[in-house]
């Protein structure tokens, strides 16, 4: 059957070719990560020095300066976001996993999934009308609220998943020893799920650490220190944005450096959360 053989050879060739192509697709996709890292290290590595971490931005036209205010600003915004987002997400998740029944749980889950899918720029509009308009000026508080709102659904849904993954025998054991439901939760279930919960919180933190869009008209940006919580404040991702689109070469150089610091921080948190903490627990994807 020469014709049949030729057909089989063709089918085998197609099979091999297409499967190779899928491998190429996977390689291309993964290569992008190393491409991004390589470029950031190449362009930004030389601009990272002591001044970058300790100095304020230089006035327009002068070279030098650093991003100390943006680094502190990002830290303050993220602290506020964590204080707002994690308790709501964590305690709400306890309700969902341990207390909830039927329709209420469905509504909460639905709201969280909806919130998770809202584009970050729209969260910015929300924080603007909620905080900036009543106070009549941009502030650290507004930026923190925007980022905090983004942290809620990520923390909530993954914490619930991790708490549900705790075997029921543990709950029953604690109950059989006479512990109340609440005692069971905080002495047995939360400790059993803590690695997963911490992973979820870290991933939520890393996710909002790089957000720029919700900060544009909430935290706004500031070339100086921002004392207190009630004034406009600078942040690293916002600095990357305005320096990248600026016409000054020195600023563009610093945009690369800020990008490298930002990405380094986010990747380190991600790697820590996914490898060390999450060993043995499967990380749900947001």
């Amino acid at each position, binding site marked *: 059957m020469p014709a049949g053989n030729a057909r089989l050879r063709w089918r085998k060739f197609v*099979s*091999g070719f*297409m*499967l190779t192509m*899928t*491998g*190429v*697709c*996977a390689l*291309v*996709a*993964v290569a992008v*990560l190393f491409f991004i890292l390589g*470029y950031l290290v190449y362009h930004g590595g030389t601009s990272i020095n002591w001044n970058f971490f300790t100095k304020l931005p230089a006035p327009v036209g002068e070279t030098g300066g650093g991003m100390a205010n943006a680094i502190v600003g990002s830290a303050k915004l993220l602290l506020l976001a964590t204080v707002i987002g994690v*308790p*709501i997400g*964590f*305690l*709400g998740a306890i*309700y969902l996993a341990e*207390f*909830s029944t039927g329709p*209420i749980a469905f509504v*909460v889950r639905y*709201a969280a999934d909806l*919130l998770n*899918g*809202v*584009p*970050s*720029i*729209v*969260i910015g*509009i*929300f924080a*603007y*009308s*909620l905080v900036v308009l009543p106070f009549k000026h941009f502030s650290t508080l507004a930026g923190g609220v925007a980022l905090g*709102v983004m942290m*809620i*659904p990520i923390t*909530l849904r993954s914490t619930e998943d991790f708490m549900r993954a705790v075997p029921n025998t543990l709950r029953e054991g604690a109950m059989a020893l006479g512990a109340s*439901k*609440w*005692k069971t939760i905080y002495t047995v279930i939360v400790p059993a799920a803590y690695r997963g919960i911490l992973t979820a919180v870290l991933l939520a933190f890393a996710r909002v650490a790089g957000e*720029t*869009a919700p900060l544009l*008209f909430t935290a706004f940006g500031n070339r100086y220190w921002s004392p207190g919580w009630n004034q406009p404040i600078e942040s690293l*991702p916002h600095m990357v*944005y305005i320096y*990248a689109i600026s016409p000054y070469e020195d600023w563009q150089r610093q*945009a690369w450096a800020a*990008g490298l610091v*930002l*990405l380094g921080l986010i*990747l380190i948190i*991600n*790697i820590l959360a996914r490898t060390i903490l999450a060993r043995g627990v499967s*990380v749900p*994807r947001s």
Partner: protein
Amino acid sequence: MAATTTTVHSAGPVTGSRSFLDRLRDGDELARLITFVFAAATVLITVLLVFELWTGSVLPRHKFGLDFFLTRVWDPNSGDFGALPFIYGTLVTAAVSLIIAVPLGIGAAIFLAELAPARVSDTLQFFIDLLAAVPSVIYGLLGVFIIVPMMREYIQPALNNTLGFIPLFTGPAYGIGFLTAGIVLAIMVIPYIISVSREVLLSVPRDQREAALALGSTRWESTWKVVVPFARTGIMGSIFLALARALGETMAVTMVIGNTPNISASLFSPGYSIAAVIADQFTEATGDLYLQSLIELGLVLFLLTFILNGLARILIVATSQRSGGGH
């Protein structure tokens, strides 16, 4: 009158409070109440978000009605606000990104789910997850300094020379524009397509593959004609998810699209997207009508992503349930 109301009110809790306090003693009721308040806060915030977007965009809704979506003049000075150029820009860039990202993403997902040994697949998936964590402003940074010059110097002239007879690939090569924004978006959404599609493909029951192979099909035939069709609703779900991300993506797009309200057949021309115009003009919007028009754009974006995310979830859940039944 006031005295009677007080007595009536205090009468209720006094009789009921003893048993309530009893229940409070072991902490269960209190814990339930506190955690419920925080769970309810999530719902409240979501409702408040929709409420703020709705009440914040009353003026343009009343003044322009549906014309808001159908007119192309965006002139803050004369008070004319038509969103068509932004809607056009959002749809075109999202379409370009999907045309690039869908084949690449599904191809990579097939490799990870069907071919690669578990260890290799997990390692690569780890990198894909990291890629999904890269902030959009970093993609914007690379877009501005790497992709824009590359488009201007090489890709756009080359496309113009070879495919210039199609109106899509005509016009001067600025580097920025719809095509560049679409390419940056494609790079950003590929990880989402890969992650979800891989998961869906992995959930296809083994016997489907084995049956196809036993009937004499090659590895590719069993993958492409049996496994992929089996998972196709879930894969569609991953595409909707990616589309929702692409529509709402702000920073990377605003940095490379050119920020010009423009409807043009050419993919090389600069444009604007809904998210980009909000990011770009919100702080300088003077006057209520201007600001509220931008908020209405936010509402449009919210509704688009709301519908797409909902569809995506339904499709993905439907596939995993079907696979569960197949075992």
